[in-house]
């Protein structure tokens, strides 16, 4: 059976010939997965593009009811977390356990911050009845079509919800990596799990880089006037 097979290298699974091959497989696998993720969000982007360009005014008004300051804050939080993630990879390459752990911890901290802020925003929507569910939805803003606004919020919740789900999964992965790092599982030769989960984390950041302007900033010029 698999586990009884003697491994020549620490961290090498039985069915690979060497670490190089294993690492290549892992990284290619993650990239392939990220491509599926692009398409996964792609379906929602398609809906967004269609309706946003069909109902620009209503989308702008709907968007102006989101707090771009919170969204912007979250953007910055995620970018910082991406930096700490990148640094975590750097320290794993260098074999610096202490800083690896620190960077991973910071990454998780920022990720959690993001989720908390997201929760605050969702709660605000709940309080103001701006969650698009029939009989719950309540919209009084004049000069805008409640139906179109509901579609905006439907897309908003779908996209940010799925994104938040990815964040939660990302935190889980980071916790595992942290645990592995703490138990000295990584060496300068073998640290591909850190790198590969880093790819995932950065991807989730990229999604938000798109979501922020597309969802939060449509109505910025409206609030200005």
């Amino acid at each position, binding site marked *: 059976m698999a586990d009884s097979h003697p491994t020549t290298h620490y961290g090498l699974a039985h069915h690979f010939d060497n670490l190089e091959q294993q690492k290549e497989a892992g990284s290619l696998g993650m990239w392939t997965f990220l491509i*599926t993720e692009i398409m*996964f969000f792609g379906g929602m982007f398609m809906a967004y593009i269609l309706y946003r360009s069909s109902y620009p005014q209503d989308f702008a008004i709907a968007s102006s009811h989101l707090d771009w300051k919170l969204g912007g804050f979250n953007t910055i939080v995620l970018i910082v977390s991406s930096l700490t993630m990148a640094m975590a990879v750097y320290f794993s390459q260098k074999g610096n356990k202490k800083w690896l752990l620190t960077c991973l911890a910071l990454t998780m901290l920022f990720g959690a911050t993001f989720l908390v802020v997201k929760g605050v925003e969702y709660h605000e929507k709940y309080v103001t009845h701006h969650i698009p569910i029939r009989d719950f939805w309540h919209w009084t803003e004049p000069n805008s079509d409640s139906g179109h606004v509901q579609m905006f919020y439907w897309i908003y919740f779908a996209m940010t919800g799925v994104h938040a789900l990815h964040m939660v999964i990302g935190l889980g992965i980071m916790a595992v990596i942290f645990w592995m790092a703490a138990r000295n599982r990584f060496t300068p030769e073998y640290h591909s799990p850190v790198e590969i989960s880093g790819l995932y984390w950065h991807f989730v950041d990229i999604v938000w880089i798109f979501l922020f302007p597309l969802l939060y900033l449509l109505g910025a010029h409206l609030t200005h006037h």
Partner: protein
Amino acid sequence: MSTEAEVIAPSVNYYNVAYGVKSWLLTKDHKRIALLYLASVTLFFFLGGLFAAGIRIELLTPKGDLMQADTYNRFFTMHGIVMVFFFLIPSIPTTLGNFLIPMMIGAKDLAFPKLNLLSWYIYTLGGLFTLLAIVLGGVDTGWTFYAPYSSNYANGNVLLAGIGIFITGFSSILTGLNFIVTIHTMRAPGMTWFRLPLFIWSHYATSLVMVLGTPVIAITVLLLALERIAHVGIFDPALGGDPVLFQHLFWFYSHPAVYIMILPAMGVISELIANMARKNIFGYKFVAFSSIAIAVFGFLVWGHHLFTSTQSIYAGMVFSILSYAVAIPSAIKVFNWTATLYRGSISYDTPMLYAFGFIGFFIIGGMTGLFLAALGLDIHMQDTYFVVAHFHYIMVGGAIMGYLGGLHFWWPKITGRLYPEGWARFGALVVFVGFNLTFFPQFLLGYMGMPRRYYSYADHYQVLNVMSTAGASVLGIGYLIPMIYLSWSLKYGAKAGPNPWGAIGLEWMTPSPPPTENFPVTPVVTWEAYEFRPIEEAEVVGQTQPNEPIG
């Protein structure tokens, strides 16, 4: 058939290496996982077939008499969902593909064995949700789930079925991902891309489609299901949403998905034809690249399902012309298969009979695809039985023939046993006859105007419908025959040697059934694909001695 079956079977193989339910449910061996899948997809096939039987019996008479209209609607919906998502899409890749890909490229396993097992569990979970939906009364939306009917009007368990499909989608994604990575990184030394068996090329192409397309259906069906709960959503015309957007997103996956169903079968056919004619494939590179071309172009044609949906007529034109473009690589394959027979050494064993059947059905199914892709003609044919006949010709006539052919061909490798050849040829014949009788009349019905998804129909369609039902009963028996003798052969079949067909390919150079890590030593490939030599010589070429006990 080789009679050297009585070689000393290696004492330990993947099959007898461990016993007990746990050793199967926790296995990471791709060969065992393939068998898990084989059991599950067979189960779903018979479930889907049960629904088909219900459909055909109901359609025996013009008036609805066997069941209620609502029940009938659930029958064809569940038939479509089960057959497409739970049988045909996983069928060849997860069974034959899973079993053979590592062996054909000379690897010990897929790149991610745990992921492989996980995808079986995910598939099973999705299947359970769908079964639950069936048990709780089924779904009545058609397998296409068009909004706003399914989001706001349907009275079935759309949510459960939607979740089932969403979950199963991930199993498909993981399988595709695993294959892609495996084929890229795990090839044995000397196994260059152009030495790969065509089965590998077609599975690579299939995996591309799985990876790029499946996420879209997953999110689309999920959004639809949620829309049903919230009574609000992006496909809801009452809000200003566009139901046709759903159709775009649905077919963005579901058209490429038809190539998920046919490409693996095409790969099987390439193997069967080369090996049963003991000859190199004519135009290897053309056949190889046509698989990739089908996968890529396959993504550009989904709008041909929307010709009558009020899609813009200009978009209709674009999608129509691209649909013809995707037919070309299919044509290339058919011609090259035929040309491969030239100067071969052709055997008439069952796998080859299925291969011949495949080609015939695929030509008819594919050519009738050209009817449907012709814009002005599709106006008349869309949503009639002509479409039903078209896709059954390709999916049942084509893909399932390919699957059965492959199953017979590799059965000795998988089980170490030979199936009874006489019965098998008889079974293939019954399937062939039953199939044509079932589905050819449906072309005529369709052009005469009988719409699909009709529970009752006008009297003048009855004669052809009776023929179709009669054919379906023959076909059903035809499918039971292999089921019976294959099971029988598990215990009573003659023992097979490593290479009963005199075939070529790494999988034939290891014992049947193969040991856990497939090869005692990683093979080194020094020969081109399908490079047939006189039998004795081929054995020398192989790095492993086929008839020697290895362990």
